[in-house]
């Protein structure tokens, strides 16, 4: 199989597979679960087969022309392969976990359909080399995200789902305006064709609206904590694997790979994202709902990813790319641990939990490990990504921002250990054991991966470094 076929399959397998899940369910529930896992596993494996290609560097562009310059373009380069690999892999783990998590709920067909569609659209987005197709997959993700957030169908939940959809849609259409403005300048939506041009300042503003709304950055972030009403698997998917990573990925694709940011924005964006990161960390320290805390934590960490990309030097960019991987693993782990806990104690309020380390030791350790990784403590993977982002920020001559980011890291430590202490330490309030094997297995895998990603960081780093050099053409 050549790279083009693999990429097309990576997109089509989950998309087509998602619509086939209701058919699989006609056979049996088990068949559906197996089908879903199979599809997601294939999706996870396919990008991995492209890694040798990525390690060679260079990019492959596939084009199919359509009307009005809306050509269907695929970019196969280290950046897209890396991103596809990370998100499909985490997505696959989450699907496995789902089997245990939602096996008693209603609307499972829709659930698996949307989750697989979600992953498929992500793959499409990652490889898209056309702004309009980027937007298209962007919105498909928004649709499935909307359905999934409202999965439990409670009136309040559906409202939150609507809020999430509306805010992200608002951001996205504003971004679309930005795309159209760029089209006005370059007369094309093809990213590869507009590479190297200077992007108009207003277009940057408009596009940032979209990126920030999707990646939940201040001031368009509040839908994300609210989206915590979704099943935990979904929140994990939103936070760790797919949704919030879209914004940062698009940022990298647009403002690093394609355009050069105008000077003013180069100065402003790091400040905005650091403030966002700080505010979210503050909110996380105040909230009592475990999922909201983790959601704010995501917002906070996303700020780092943006920061690394926006300072735009080798250390920052590679740090941010690595961050996508590390945060994906660790945050998925945290959410899925939270899922196990919530499943067992039937509350989300951390003040009503306690002492669970005794009844669910694996979950507790996994949570601890993932917390360390998110905070950025070695030997766990999160350390390297955060460290490099900070280094990049300092090197870009913004030590104050680096200091603020580090202060945020201290806050992160504060609130995550607040959660850990309240939930797992202290007096045991709900003696509930760890239940489903597949769930515990997945969190254990994620914790081990968070550790392994730190110990063997040189391997992902190789790919990250190549992606960094490939995309930052102006550094060469």
């Amino acid at each position, binding site marked *: 199989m050549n790279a083009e076929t693999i990429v097309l399959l990576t997109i089509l397998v989950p998309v087509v597979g998602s619509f086939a899940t209701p058919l699989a369910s006609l056979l049996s529930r088990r068949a559906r679960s197996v089908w879903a896992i199979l599809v997601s596993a294939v999706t996870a494996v396919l990008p991995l087969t492209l890694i040798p290609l990525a390690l060679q560097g260079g990019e492959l562009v596939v084009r199919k022309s*359509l*009307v*009005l310059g*809306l050509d269907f373009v695929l970019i196969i380069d280290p950046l897209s392969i890396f991103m596809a690999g990370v998100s499909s892999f985490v997505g696959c783990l989450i699907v496995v976990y789902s089997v245990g998590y939602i096996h008693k709920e*209603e609307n499972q067909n829709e659930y698996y359909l949307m989750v697989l569609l979600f992953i498929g659209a992500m793959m499409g987005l990652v490889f898209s080399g056309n702004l*309009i197709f980027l*937007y*298209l997959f962007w*919105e*498909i993700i*928004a*649709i499935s995200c*909307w*359905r999934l957030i*409202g999965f439990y*169908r*409670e*009136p309040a939940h*559906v*409202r939150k*789902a*609507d809020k999430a*959809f*509306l805010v992200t*849609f*608002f951001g996205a*259409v*504003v971004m*679309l*305006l930005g795309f*159209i*403005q760029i*089209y*006005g300048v370059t007369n094309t939506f093809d990213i590869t064709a507009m590479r190297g041009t200077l992007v108009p300042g207003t277009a940057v503003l408009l596009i940032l609206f979209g990126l920030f709304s999707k990646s939940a950055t201040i001031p368009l972030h509040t839908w994300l904590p609210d989206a915590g009403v979704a099943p935990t698997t979904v929140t994990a998917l939103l936070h760790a694997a797919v949704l919030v990573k879209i914004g940062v990925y698009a940022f990298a694709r647009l403002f690093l790979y394609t355009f050069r940011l105008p000077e003013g924005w180069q100065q402003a964006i790091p400040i905005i994202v650091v403030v966002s990161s700080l505010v979210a960390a503050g909110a996380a320290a105040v909230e009592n709902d475990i999922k909201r805390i983790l959601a704010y934590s995501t917002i906070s960490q996303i700020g780092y990813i943006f920061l690394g990309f926006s300072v735009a030097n080798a250390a920052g960019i590679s740090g941010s790319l690595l961050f996508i991987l590390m945060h994906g693993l660790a945050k998925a782990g945290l959410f899925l641990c939270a899922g196990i806990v919530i499943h067992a104690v039937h509350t989300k309020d951390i003040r009503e939990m306690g002492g669970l380390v005794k009844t669910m030791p694996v979950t507790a350790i996994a949570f601890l490990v993932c917390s360390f990784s998110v905070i950025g403590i070695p030997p766990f993977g999160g350390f390297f990504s955060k460290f490099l982002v900070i280094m990049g920020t300092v090197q870009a001559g913004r030590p104050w921002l680096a200091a603020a980011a580090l202060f945020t890291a201290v806050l992160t430590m504060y609130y995550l250990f607040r959660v850990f202490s309240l939930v797992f330490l202290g007096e045991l309030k709900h003696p509930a054991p760890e239940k489903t094997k597949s769930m515990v297995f997945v969190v254990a895998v994620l914790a081990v991966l968070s550790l392994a990603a730190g110990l063997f960081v040189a391997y992902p780093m190789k790919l990250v470094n190549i992606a960094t050099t490939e995309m930052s053409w102006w550094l060469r």
Partner: protein
Amino acid sequence: MIILFVALPLVVAGILPLVGKVSRRVVPDLLANAALLFLLVYAAIAGRHLIAGGPVLQQLSWFGEPVAIRLALDGFSLLMLLAIALVGLAACLFSIDYMEHYGAKANYYALFLVMIAGMNGLVLATDLFNVYLFMEVAAVASYALVAFGLGRDELEAAFKYLMLSVVATAFILISVAVIFGMTGSLDFAAVAKALQELNAGAAVGVASAFFLMGFGLKAALIPFHAWLPDAHPSAPAPISAVLSGLLIKVSGVYAMTRIFLNVFGLTPALSTVLMSLGALSMVVAAFLALGQKDMKRMLAYSSISQVGYVVLGIGIGTPLGIAGGLFHLFNHALAKGLLFLTSGSVQQATGTRNLDEMGGLAKRMPITAATNLVGALSIAGVPPLNGFWSKLIIIIALVQSGHPVFAVIAVLTSVLTLWYYLLMQRKAFFGKLNEKWAAVKEAPFWMTAATVFLALLCVGIGILFSSTVTTWIQPAADVLADGVHAVIGSWGF
């Protein structure tokens, strides 16, 4: 044989009441649907062959004597014929089950086909008087159809509709008279030619304003819209679908576009007025839709808002803008038809149109819910559905022609649109099942089939937008854009 588009439905409409005496159900169902299916196939397959070499003109004659009716088929007409056939067929299929309890099915189909014939005729007409004539044919049938339920609301709505429509047609007639008086002709081409030579600014201005009001009222542009939210919801669902999906576009937007672009020529002034009216309709109606509790009223306001998009797109006057407007017209016809049909399914299943009383119907009516979702997202302009592409083209056209403010309005309105459709989804389908509807069942076969048909079209066109644009939209837009060039170039106020 262009005449078939008008004659076939008329003939079948004539036969139907007679047949109805023999068979109350099966034969009328079969006949009406067969007629529309034929029209669809004819439009989709034969139509493109007919106009392959350019527009075709057909002079009607009576026993060898030419009469003053000439029909012309070009890209624009063909697009409209296709839309009419598609939505008409879907509505007709839907009627098989839906109209069961209304009774008098044969009469219903007869009226329905007369309305189709009127619209087809209007689309094919080549002179101002025939436009007026066919418009009235379609309108009269639609008055009857709105009142078909014979309930108090239906009658009142039909009356209001009738009264305001009459005002509109009166102004159109005056305007036609003025034009005739000035040019001595009613034929599009002849009038256009004569007006170029005439250079009578003020009179044409007044005539344009009258036309604008008349067609604007038919198209339900704000502030001429007030009849629509009463009329459309009151009609039986398939009729609402045709009214909202087709009639306002054919007798309003199509006629307006044809006359302004191909006959009068789109002056900058007219363009500004059209765009402003479009934008105004878009925004205000979207807000109005937001406040509705009645599902069909919400849809009706949404129609006004979307017609605003269409007019805005066409009003730009650039080829891209026109293409976008027409594409949106086509997409909206499908999607809004779909939405009205699903609302009919819901109304039949639950007996209510009040959104507050519904809830969680997706559990009981999954297909209806899914198709409704497709329609809603399509109109809101969410990719990859068809509505997205047409809105995209309109917005690109707006930005390219230097109207960023309108572009921003259009974009923000689509957020509003999504907002009220999400409201509808949340209250009707998405959410906890209202215990009251625990016994509700999915809609009968033909109703579901009709909605699935339209939903698949929405999705299909969204995915194959590129070939749709090149095959259907581009020729239509070319006709209009050519007209613009031909007329604008030499004539103005």
